[in-house]
């Protein structure tokens, strides 16, 4: 209180103090280097070890896949050691020659425009569904889950009545089959997974226990055994004349498998919906199905979209397993091309696998980036809503 008489004395600075320079070893490039690479003897050792590893591994890889690689040619001669290239690298010429086989399998050459059209139609559906700002996404969903499957079946298998000749599935192959298997898995597993998730949360004991049994059974066994079951046991379970085609059997197995996993993902989304939403929907007098279709599922699916995409990445990688039950998917066509005697050379194996790995990596990485972005967007939106609630309340 005594200080009150001193109020007139100015004890505050009137001008800002001169800025001190940044400590030499904290800011800037040098500081970053020190903090993130050379902060302690152990860290220095780790950094040197990693640098050594990169220096040892990266240049040979670049040399093998780019500098010493052979890019053109029509048979193994192109990829054998020669005077100009005594230690040949990857044989991309092999991939170029076989590329159409990798994409279409044995699909008749004159009919391949149908595959291209299918891929374009699929791309349209995927963009429509995944681009969150796309117009009329409801119609997009109908297109993807109802129109597209019918259209694809007619396009790929053929319908002689409208002039599209019949193409048996044993001629399908390569990336076409990989994408067909993944798409069928997706188109079947999402609706079926939603139904199973709802069934598992149902209060009807019969419905609930059937769903639990199916989901836990499928999730408890390896996909290969499900595929074996589909390809060996399924033909036994139906009358002989109805025995499904080999590809269809694998598709049934994959769809069953994916549905069980999708059901758990959707259930996770359903669990995230607050109870008040159910109560509000009931208070409005909505029936069970309308409540789920109009109130619960739109929110649950939005929340769980990143998980759905991640499940789909798993499904996409798992499509390679149809290889084992004798379906010519992309990986199997690569494997088959390896045994071509016209191309027999030591580099073929690595080149083929590298090409396949690149394909799967690009697809899966793009999807996982997308999932990450949606997740961040949801988190931001959730944060905003949270802030608004706090402000209002």
């Amino acid at each position: 209180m005594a200080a009150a008489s001193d109020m007139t004395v100015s004890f505050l600075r009137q001008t800002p103090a001169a800025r001190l320079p940044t400590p030499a070893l904290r800011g800037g490039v040098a500081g970053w280097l020190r903090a993130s690479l050379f902060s302690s003897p152990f860290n220095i050792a780790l950094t040197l070890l990693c640098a050594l590893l990169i220096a040892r591994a990266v240049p040979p890889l670049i040399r093998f896949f780019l500098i010493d690689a052979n890019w053109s040619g029509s048979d193994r001669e192109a990829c054998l050691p020669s005077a100009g290239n005594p230690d040949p690298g990857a044989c991309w010429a092999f991939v170029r020659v076989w590329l159409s086989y990798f994409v279409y399998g044995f699909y008749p050459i004159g009919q391949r425009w149908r595959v291209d059209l299918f891929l374009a139609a699929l791309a349209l559906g995927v963009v429509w569904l995944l681009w969150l700002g796309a117009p009329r996404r409801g119609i997009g969903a109908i297109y993807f889950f109802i129109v597209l499957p019918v259209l694809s079946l007619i396009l790929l298998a053929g319908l002689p009545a409208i002039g599209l000749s019949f193409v048996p599935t044993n001629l399908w192959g390569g990336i076409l089959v990989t994408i067909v298997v993944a798409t069928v898995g997706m188109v079947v597993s999402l609706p079926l997974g939603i139904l199973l998730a709802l069934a598992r949360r149902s209060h009807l004991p019969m419905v609930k226990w059937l769903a639990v049994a199916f989901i836990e059974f499928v999730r408890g066994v390896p996909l290969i055994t499900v595929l074996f079951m589909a390809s060996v046991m399924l033909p036994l379970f139906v009358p002989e004349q109805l025995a499904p085609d080999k590809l269809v059997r694998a598709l049934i197995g994959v769809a069953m498998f994916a549905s069980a996993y999708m059901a758990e993902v959707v259930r996770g989304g359903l669990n995230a919906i607050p109870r008040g939403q159910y109560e509000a929907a009931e208070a409005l007098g909505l029936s069970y199905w309308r409540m789920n279709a109009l109130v619960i599922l739109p929110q649950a699916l939005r929340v769980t979209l990143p998980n759905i995409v991640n499940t789909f990445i798993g499904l996409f990688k798992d499509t390679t397993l149809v290889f084992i039950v004798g379906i010519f998917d992309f990986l199997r066509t690569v494997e088959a091309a390896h045994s071509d005697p016209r191309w027999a050379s030591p580099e073929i194996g690595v080149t083929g696998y590298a090409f396949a790995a690149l394909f799967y990596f690009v697809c899966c990485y793009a999807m996982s980036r997308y999932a990450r972005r949606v997740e961040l967007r949801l988190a931001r939106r959730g944060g905003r809503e949270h802030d608004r609630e706090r402000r209002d309340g």
Partner: protein
Amino acid sequence: MSDVARASPRLPPHRERRGLDASWLVLQVALFAVIAGLIGAAGYNAAQNLAKANIAHGFGFWNNTAGFDISQTLIDYSSSTSTFGHAFWVGLLNTLLIAGVGIVLATILGFVIGIARLSRNWLVARLAGGYVEVIRNIPLLLQLLFWYNAVLKALPEMRGSIALPLGGFLNNRGLFLPKPVFAPDFEAVVIALAVGIAAAIGWRIWAKRYQARTGEQMPIVLPALAVIFGLPFIVFVVAGKPLTFGIPDMGRFNIRGGLEILPELAALLFALTVYTAAFIAEVVRAGVLAVPAGQIEAAQTLGLRAGGTLRLVVVPQAMRVIVPPLTSQYLNLIKNSSLAVAIGYPDLVQVFAGSVLNITGQAVEVIAITMAVYLFISLVTSLLMNFYGRIVAVAER
């Protein structure tokens, strides 16, 4: 308002009243009838089709002579005398071998990479991150075929074997290592090891009590290590070193003696370890990040050193988050080991759902048994997980 008024008199159908509501009961009965009908029809068709193909049914084949060879057998097995039942156990043991070794290796690699991803060293974190992204986004089957066909099969032939230190060989027929040969006296060393571990545990308990009583800390780690490794070593020397190694001996066409690791086993182990480790790394990273920074700051405020902070504060809380998804990665590894069939490693699926199924033709029984094994492993694991979850939940407030 009018919409609500019209709809409101009806109670929500799926709450409270459902047990009484006849329509829901009818639905359930109808569902049951449909499922039962489908199973019945499938069974009838299967019986018809199998009878037409002249294939036996039932589990009688279990005791029939198998008549096929298996490239790796952990128990006695011969194609001429052993039964399909024996083949089943051989396959199952091979699956458990790959699962056990794979889980240990993947856990070690996964924890190292997960922690490396969190390192403050930019280069280390980036390298670990790159590893995870690349490995996770390439199908396991592709990686497996790569290791098997492009790496192991491209190794030199028998004659050009790569000699490894300590008398091992590596070639395209597998990895040949010195094989430990245990003399009968070796049991004493094992007993000494057990005694050493027991003594170390006893010492730790005593040291903790002593610290509680007097506040004085006794060294624990060094004496424990000394007794665990020292005691068996002394016994080993005293007993006259009852352990020799069978060095592989390279002949013209074959390598005799030594421990042979099939290329199939090596490729499968390598692919499963590398693949699963990427997923375990993510689990570990998420677990460590789940420990709030305030916990670490609080531990430092209490004066704990870096080691104590990690051991007493971070790890116990991180493990609570890590263990459940870690277990599901272990289950994935076990299920993924069935990819063995693609390269011909004789695991359960390859031996049983492959060879036995082809010979007997009894698809229903064979596939059912195979699935039952995996289902059993999964269910037991998830029961244990629930149990663990309950223990951890008790520790929480």
